[in-house]
C-alpha cells in the first residue's frame, strides 16, 4: 500500500462531503420544486420599483485621456518631491535615471498638448 494513499482517500472524502449536499439540493429541486421564472421575478432588483433607465448605457472610453494626464501630473509630483529632497546626496547616475523618468512623463505631456487635450472646451 502506498504511504500517501490515505491522503488521497481524505481528499476524496472531503470532495464528497462538499459536493453531496449540493447534489442533494439539485436533485431535490429537480424532482420536487418546479421552476417558476417570470418577467417580474427575473427583473432587476430595484427595491420593488421598475428599473429605469435600461442598463445599456454608452460608456465614454475617452476617459482614458484624463487617466493619462492624471498619471503624468500626480505620479510626477509624487516622485519629484523626494527627488528634490534627496537631490544633494544623489549620484550623477541617479540624477540621469530620474531625468529619464521625467522625460518619459514629459513626453506624454507633450503628446497630450499636441492633441489639444489640455485645452478647456
Amino acid at each position, binding site marked *: 500500500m502506498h504511504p500517501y494513499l490515505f491522503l488521497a482517500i481524505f481528499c476524496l472524502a472531503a470532495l464528497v462531503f462538499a459536493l453531496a449536499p449540493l447534489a442533494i439540493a439539485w436533485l431535490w429541486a429537480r424532482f420536487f420544486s*418546479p421552476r417558476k421564472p417570470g418577467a*417580474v421575478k427575473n427583473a432587476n432588483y430595484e427595491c420593488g420599483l421598475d428599473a429605469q433607465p435600461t442598463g445599456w448605457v454608452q460608456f465614454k472610453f475617452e476617459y482614458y485621456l484624463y487617466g493619462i494626464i492624471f498619471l503624468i501630473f500626480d505620479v510626477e509630483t509624487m516622485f519629484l518631491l523626494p527627488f528634490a529632497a534627496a537631490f544633494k546626496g544623489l549620484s550623477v547616475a541617479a540624477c540621469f535615471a530620474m531625468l529619464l523618468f521625467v522625460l518619459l512623463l514629459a513626453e506624454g505631456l507633450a503628446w497630450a498638448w499636441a492633441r489639444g487635450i489640455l485645452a478647456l472646451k
Partner: protein
Amino acid sequence: MNQQPQNDLTRQGVVLTTVEDLYNWGRKNSLWPLQFGLACCAIEMIAASMARFDIARFGAEVFRPSPRQADLMIVSGTITKKMAPQVVRLFNQMPEPKYVIAMGSCAISGGPFRDGYNVLQGIDLYLPVDIYIPGCPPRPEALLEGLIHLQQKIAGQRLTGPERPRHLDANAPGEFPVPEFGPHDLVGPRLHEDA
C-alpha cells in the same frame, strides 16, 4: 411503521422521521423575513427582532435586504395605493417557497384608514396572505405567535398529492399580478373582490 416500535426506538435514542417531516422541519425553523417595513407595525417588528423578544429563538432573525434571499414577507403597516405595486413586485421577486404575514389592521383591511382615498383595503387583495395578525399595532408577542402559527402551517404541508402547497405545484402561479396606477385608483386583477 406503527406507533409502538417507534416509541421503543425513541426510548433507545433512535429517531425515525419522514422526508416530508424533515423537509418541513428545516423550512419552518429557518424562515428568513424580508427586511421591509411600511409603517408603525414595522417598529414592533423591529422590537420583535431585538434582544427582549428575540425572534431568533424561532429561527427567523435573518432579515434579508434582498427579496432574492427571503422566504417570508411581513407586511407591517399601512399600504398606501402608491406603495402597493412595489409590495407586490417585491413579493414576486422572492423565490418559492414564500409566505406572507399581514401584520396589523392596516395590512389586513386598511384599518383606521380604510375609507381613506389613498389606502389599500388589505394586502390580501393582491397577495396570498398566510397569517393575519390583528392589532393596531400588534405587540411583538403577537408577531411571534403569528410566526409560530405560520410554522405550524408549514409543518403540515404535504410534499406530494393534490393538496401540496403552491411552491411544489408546477401549475400554481409563482407571480401575482402587479396593480398599476389608473386615473383614479389602482387597476388590474385582484385576488378577490372587496366587500
